[in-house]
C-alpha cells in the first residue's frame, strides 16, 4: 500500500490507486459489521431495560464525549485538506495538516484517558469496581461493559490511525507525495474518516441517555 512502485499486476498507477481505495471500502464494510454487531447487542439490551440504561447513561460524561466528537470532526477536516494539499502539490501545507491530524488524534486519546479516570473514580467499572446506587440493577453493569468495550475498540482503531498518519507525515516531509502519487493519503484518509463516523454512533449510544429529567 505504501510503496510508490507500480506493482506487476497493474497496468498503471491510476488503476493501482483506484484498486487500493476499493480495497479500503471493502474493509470498511467489514468494520461496519464488526461495530454493528456490538451496537446490535447494545440495542437489544437498551430496549429490554430502558430505565436501567437511562440510569447508567446518566453517569457518563457528556461534555467530554462532545469535546471528543468536536476534535474528531476537526481531524477529519484536516485529513481531507491534507489530501487536497497533496493534489495541489503544496508540500508544506501537507506536512502541517498531517501533523495537525496526528495532534488532534492524540488530543482525543488524552481526553478519553481523562474520561476513563473519571469513570474509575465514579466506580463505573463493571465487576472490578462497580457500585450499585439505589435503584441500579445488573443491566446498568451491562451498559458500562458496552461502554468500555466500544470506546476501547474505537480507541484502538484510532491509535492505528494515528500511527498510519504519523508515518505518512514523515514520508510527506521527505517529499514522497506528489499530485501524481497520493494513493496512500487517500486510503488512510478513508480509514481516518470512517473511525470518525464510528464515534457518531457510539456517542448516540452512550451519552444522551437519561438526561431529560
Amino acid at each position: 500500500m505504501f510503496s510508490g512502485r507500480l506493482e506487476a499486476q497493474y497496468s498503471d498507477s491510476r488503476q493501482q490507486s483506484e484498486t487500493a481505495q476499493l480495497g479500503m471500502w471493502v474493509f470498511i464494510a467489514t468494520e461496519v459489521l464488526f461495530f454493528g454487531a456490538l451496537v446490535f447487542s447494545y440495542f437489544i439490551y437498551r430496549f429490554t431495560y430502558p430505565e436501567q440504561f437511562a440510569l447508567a447513561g446518566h453517569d457518563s460524561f457528556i461534555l467530554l464525549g462532545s469535546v471528543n466528537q468536536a476534535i474528531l470532526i476537526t481531524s477529519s477536516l484536516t485529513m481531507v485538506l491534507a489530501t487536497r494539499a497533496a493534489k495541489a502539490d503544496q508540500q508544506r501545507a501537507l506536512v502541517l495538516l498531517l501533523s495537525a491530524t496526528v495532534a488532534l488524534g492524540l488530543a482525543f486519546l488524552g481526553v478519553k484517558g481523562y474520561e476513563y479516570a473519571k469513570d474509575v473514580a465514579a466506580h463505573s467499572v463493571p465487576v472490578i469496581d462497580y457500585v450499585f446506587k439505589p435503584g441500579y440493577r445488573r443491566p446498568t453493569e451491562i451498559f458500562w461493559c458496552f461502554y468500555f468495550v466500544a470506546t476501547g475498540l474505537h480507541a484502538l482503531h484510532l491509535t492505528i490511525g494515528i500511527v498510519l498518519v504519523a508515518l505518512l507525515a514523515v514520508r510527506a516531509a521527505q517529499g514522497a507525495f506528489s499530485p501524481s502519487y497520493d494513493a496512500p493519503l487517500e486510503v488512510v484518509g478513508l480509514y481516518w474518516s470512517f473511525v470518525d463516523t464510528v464515534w457518531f454512533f457510539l456517542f448516540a449510544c452512550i451519552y444522551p441517555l437519561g438526561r431529560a429529567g
Partner: protein
Amino acid sequence: MSATTAGLPARHPESQSESYLGDEHSLGSWLFTRDHKRIAILFFASITFFFFIGGAAAALIRLHLVNPYGTLLQPEVYNRMFTMHGIVMVWFFLIPSIPATLGNFLIPLMIGARDLAFPRLNLFSWYLFTLSGFIALYFIFIGGDDTGWTFYEPYSSNFANGHVIAAAVAVFINGFSTIATALNFVVTTHKLRAPGMTWFRLPLFVWAIYATSIVMLLATPVLAMTLALVGIERLWGVGIFNPALGGDPILFQHMFWFYSHPAVYIMVLPAMGVVSELVACFARRPVFGYRGMCYALISIAVIGFFVWGHHMFTAGISLTSAVVFSLMSFIVAVPSAIKVFNWTATLHNARISFDAPMLYALGFVGLFTIGGLTGLVLATLSADIHLQDTYFVVAHFHFIMVGGTVSAYFGGLHYWWSKITGRHYPEMWGRYAAILMFVGFNLTFFPQFILGYLGMPRRYYTYAPDLQTWNVLSSAGASILAAAYLLPLGYLTWSLFFGKRARANPWGATGLEWRTSSPPPAHNFPHTPTVTERPYRYDPRDGSFTTQDGAHFAEPAGLGLGLGAADV
C-alpha cells in the same frame, strides 16, 4: 455489471523465468514470497496439517463409540476431542480449504491477471492463519476446550473447564486471515480481469469464490465481535450473555449463527464452483444454464443470511420467528436445487470420461443432494423437535461438508494437480481413492441418519447398547475413510518426484489457467491473454473445444484413459 477494466501492458519483460516453483529454492524465497501461487502452496501445507489433526480427533471419537460403554476416552477427554475436531475442521480446514488454496492459485490465472490485487496482504493472511494455528495447537496441547465448536453461552463463560479464551483467540485471529483473503479476491475480481473477461465470461469457479468472499466479508466480523464478548465475559465475569446477570444467552446464539450459518455456504459454495468446472470438462459439454448457475450462487450467498434461526428452533426463540426462519430455509433450497438440476442436465446425453476428478465430482453431486434434502427435513419445525441434537443432524452436515466440500476439494486437487505441480498423479490410484472415499463416507455417515432417527443424541460419550450395530458400522466406515484420505497423501507426494511431466492442457479444458505452462511462470502469462469466448465451449459432438482466448482444439486423445496423453 460493467465490462472489463484491466488494460494490461502486452509484454512483461521480467517474466522470462520457467516456473514459479523453479525460480528460487531458499526457505526465504517461500516465506517472503508475494506470488499468489506460492502462497497457495503455503496454505495447502498448513491446512493439510490441520486436516490430519482434526481427522485424528475424529478417529478417536469413532473408535471410542464402537462400544456403548466406551472406555477409550474419559468423558472429559471425549468432550474436548469433539470440540477440537469441530474447531480445527471448521476454521482450520474447511473454511480456508478451497478458497485459500485452489482459489488463491487459480483466481488470477482464470481471470488472466498477473497476481492478486494485494500480494502482501495475501502473504500477511497466511501469517495470520499460521499464528492462529499455533494458538490453536497451544490450546490443544495445554488440555483443549470442552464447549463444542459453538461456544454456547452461558456454558462457555461460566461453567466450561477448558481453555475457552485461547480457543476463542485462535478463531478470532483466524477470522482476520479469512477477511484478508476474501477482500483480496473481491477486489481482484472487480479490478484485474483481463481484457474481454466480462462478468458473464467468468468461469463458475470464479463466481463461486466471489460469492464466498462476499459472505466471508459480511459474516466473519460478527463472529469476531461475538467471540470477543464471550472472552470478555469469561475473563471478567460481566453478564453480557449470562441470564443470572441480566444477559440473554439466545442473543449469543443469534449473533453466533448469523456468522455460522453463512459459514456453511462459505464451505460449500467453492465446492460448487469446482464441481461446475469438472462436470463441464469431463462431460465435454457447456454447463447447462450458465447464467442460472451464476444467479443461483449469488442467491445462495444472500438468502443464506436469512436462515440462521433454524439452528435455534429448540433454543427458545419465539414460534413466530421459528416459522419465518423455517420458511426462509425452504427458500434457500431452491437455488441449491437449481444447481443440482443443472449439473445433471449437463451430464444428460454426454460422453462422460470417468477420470478421478470426475468421480469425485459425481460423488459430490450425489452426497450434496442427500445432505441438502435431509436439511429440508430438519428445517421442518415439527420434525426438528424430534431430530434436533441427534446424530441425524451430525449426518446431515457431514454429508454437506465431508461428502460435499471435501469430495470437491479432492476432485479439484486432482484436476489442477498437473497445473500446480507440473506432474501427473497416478490415475488408477486416483480412481481407487475416489471410490474408496465414496464407499467409506457412506458407510460412516449413512448409519448416523438411522441412529439419529432412533434418538441417539450427539455429543454423548455413551449410548444405549441396542444402537451398537449401527455405531460399529459407522466406525468401520470411518476406518475406510481414513485409508482413503491417507492414500492421496501417499501417491500425490510420490507424484511430486516420479509423476509423469504434464503439458499445458492435459484435460483439454477451456479456462485461461490452461493457456500457460504447467507449472506456470512467476507472473502467470508471458502475454496478457485477451478473452473472446464464454467459458465451457466444449463441443458435445466430437469433444473438441475452444479456449476462452479463442483457440480451437480437437479432443485430447488420452481423455478417459487416464494420465492425460493430450497433446495441446
